[in-house]
């Protein structure tokens, strides 16, 4: 699909010409000079569509949410297709009860670094449960998924080493590489041939970092070929399974297990914020790795530990994910339903083959209007536009949950196909 030749509002076209890179340098020597030009742009961008970001919710992120429209101030009840919560676990009674009991027992927070006073028995239980679930010797917890990557990567890699990243790597992976001060080489998205081209002849310590499921496109890592290339060139492999842990593979361990490559991967990283709908990250592997990270994982070492309330809730959530494989089956059934219906209606979901589905609008100026109409008709969805995705690849991002009913999914299909049809963005 191509963008329309003319735009109805020149102002709208104008604000889309800029992104954060335009506000990187300012005249003069005062850092405050950066603020005003950005805010002038942001005020305009906000009223034309950026108001759709950071809209507050007034309840649990279930399949139906009450959301405040940032433009009108009105609270609306919407079908939720924006929250991760892929298994619908975070608001289950068992999880809330475990968190409530932990709140009663421990109080609000950990009140210390995990290496000092901030490790509680519940943290150790959670780490052991994660290691068992992932079939690894040990696991170590981080306050967030972001901190897991910026803790792990610089702990392993140094100046003079080389890190190979997929071009669509999450910011936490990129920032981890920056903090490692290693040479960073990007290979084309999910392209083992380009990795081969880039890694050939590189000497020294090498790390290849991939993601199980890529968060903007919902496509799955081409892991078998990437592992083959990495191993042939003597590189270690780190997989970030933020969007695939608890979902893929016979036991839900992730994409590595899905491909039967669990033992071939050197470093396994995951998060609790996606499938469990909580917060936090983890790395698992050998006991030696975990002991090393306990000493050298600076993002963990110098942060307060996860709240024990959260850890208790996550432990309960993990038990549900392990004990109820039917949740995964329901999720994949929902994904299959939505894929089929979108195909029937001519809705383009790109290369998605997971629960993350981009609804391709492919029109940077129009994506906010599409998102606005979709919300007006009852769906909570976020627009994603340049520079988060390439130009003309703007989209709405759907997170499918096992908790969605077929009625909710069908309502979503009707709204999305209707709006895209009205906007001339269907692919048929």
């Amino acid at each position, binding site marked *: 699909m*191509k*963008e*329309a*030749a*003319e*735009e109805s509002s020149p102002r709208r076209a104008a604000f889309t*010409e*800029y992104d954060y*890179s*335009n*506000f*990187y*340098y*300012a*005249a003069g020597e005062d850092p405050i*000079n*950066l603020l005003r*030009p950005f805010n*002038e*742009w942001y005020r305009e961008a906000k009223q034309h569509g950026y108001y759709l970001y950071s809209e507050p919710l007034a309840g649990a992120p279930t399949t139906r949410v009450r959301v405040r429209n940032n433009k009108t101030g009105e609270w609306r009840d919407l079908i939720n297709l924006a929250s991760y919560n892929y298994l619908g676990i975070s608001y289950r009674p068992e999880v809330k009860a475990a968190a409530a009991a932990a709140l009663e027992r421990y109080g609000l927070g950990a009140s210390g670094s995990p290496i000092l006073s901030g490790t509680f028995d519940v943290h150790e239980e959670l780490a052991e449960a994660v290691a068992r679930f992932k079939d690894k010797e040990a696991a170590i917890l981080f306050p967030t998924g972001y901190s897991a990557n910026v803790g792990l990567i610089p702990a392993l890699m140094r100046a003079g080493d080389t890190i190979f*990243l997929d*071009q669509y790597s999450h910011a936490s992976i*990129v920032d981890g*590489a*920056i903090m490692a001060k290693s*040479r*960073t*080489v*990007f290979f084309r998205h999910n392209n083992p041939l380009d990795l081969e081209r880039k890694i050939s002849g590189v000497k020294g310590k090498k790390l290849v970092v991939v993601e199980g499921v890529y968060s903007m496109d919902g496509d799955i890592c081409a892991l078998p070929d990437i592992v083959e290339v990495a191993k042939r060139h003597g590189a270690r492999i780190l997989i970030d399974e933020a969007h695939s842990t608890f979902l893929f593979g016979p036991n839900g361990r992730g994409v590595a297990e899905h491909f039967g490559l669990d033992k071939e991967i050197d470093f396994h990283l995951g998060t609790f914020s996606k499938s469990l709908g909580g917060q936090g990250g983890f790395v698992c592997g050998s006991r030696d790795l975990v002991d090393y990270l306990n000493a050298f994982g600076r993002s963990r070492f110098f942060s307060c530990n996860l709240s024990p309330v959260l850890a208790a809730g996550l432990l309960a959530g993990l038990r549900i994910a392990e004990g109820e494989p039917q949740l995964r089956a329901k999720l994949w059934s929902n994904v299959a339903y939505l894929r089929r219906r979108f195909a029937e209606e001519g809705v383009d979901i790109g290369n998605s083959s997971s629960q993350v589905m981009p609804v391709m609008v492919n029109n940077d100026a129009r994506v906010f209007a599409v998102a606005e109409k979709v919300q007006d008709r009852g769906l909570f969805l976020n627009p994603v536009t340049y520079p988060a995705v*390439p*130009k*003309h*690849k703007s989209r709405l991002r759907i997170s499918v949950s096992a908790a969605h009913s077929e009625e909710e999914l069908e309502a979503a299909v009707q709204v999305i196909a209707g709006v895209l049809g009205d906007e001339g963005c269907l692919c048929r």
Partner: protein
Amino acid sequence: MPLSRYRFRWGLSGFFEFPTENARRILPRGLEPLELHHGSSVFSLTAFDFVDSEVGPYSEVVFGVIVPPLLGEEGRLAKSAFYPWQLATTTRAAREHAMNRWHLPHWPENVGIEFTRDARSLVVRVKAEGSPTAELTITEHSWQPASHLYQCFMQDDSGAYLTHITMEGEYSEHEEESGRMRLYDHPFNKDILLSEVYETPFREVWYRDGVQSFEPLVSRSAA
């Protein structure tokens, strides 16, 4: 404000990733490359087919490094900013004009620049001293009228300068990765580590039937 106008038939750019170390070697002190990814900056290859200017019709090719635009006090936001470190033209008059007025460094001899249009693309072939130096293929997307403001940073022995350039015309821009660039082993390309620059542009820009307008130079110390 007096403007210098250059009317063109084609104006096209390909944007390519290349190592930040390479970009830093090219940029003068005081300018930083804009990184697309950590360690990866942006090399731009631009070609114009000018049909009318103060120095008559000519063609031009520009090698640039993309830098972050400078936020001024006047509230105008540039779409992008660049530092052109090597230009080449097809006429001596155009070369001397650009060097004298705009402090733009040029290849000292006339070069051959050939534009070939086909169904969906435009190919530019550049020859210097009779040998091929560069070939750029840009593909089209959708066309719409546009007026874009750019910042161009210049530096030579006389000082450091900045000008604002407005590009007006029919405009196509995309990131479909369907274009192509080939740089030949030639003294013209000596500042670029050829094995490290991408051959596929992550972005392709194409203006047609438009005008490029330069505002008067300002000294960078005053910018």
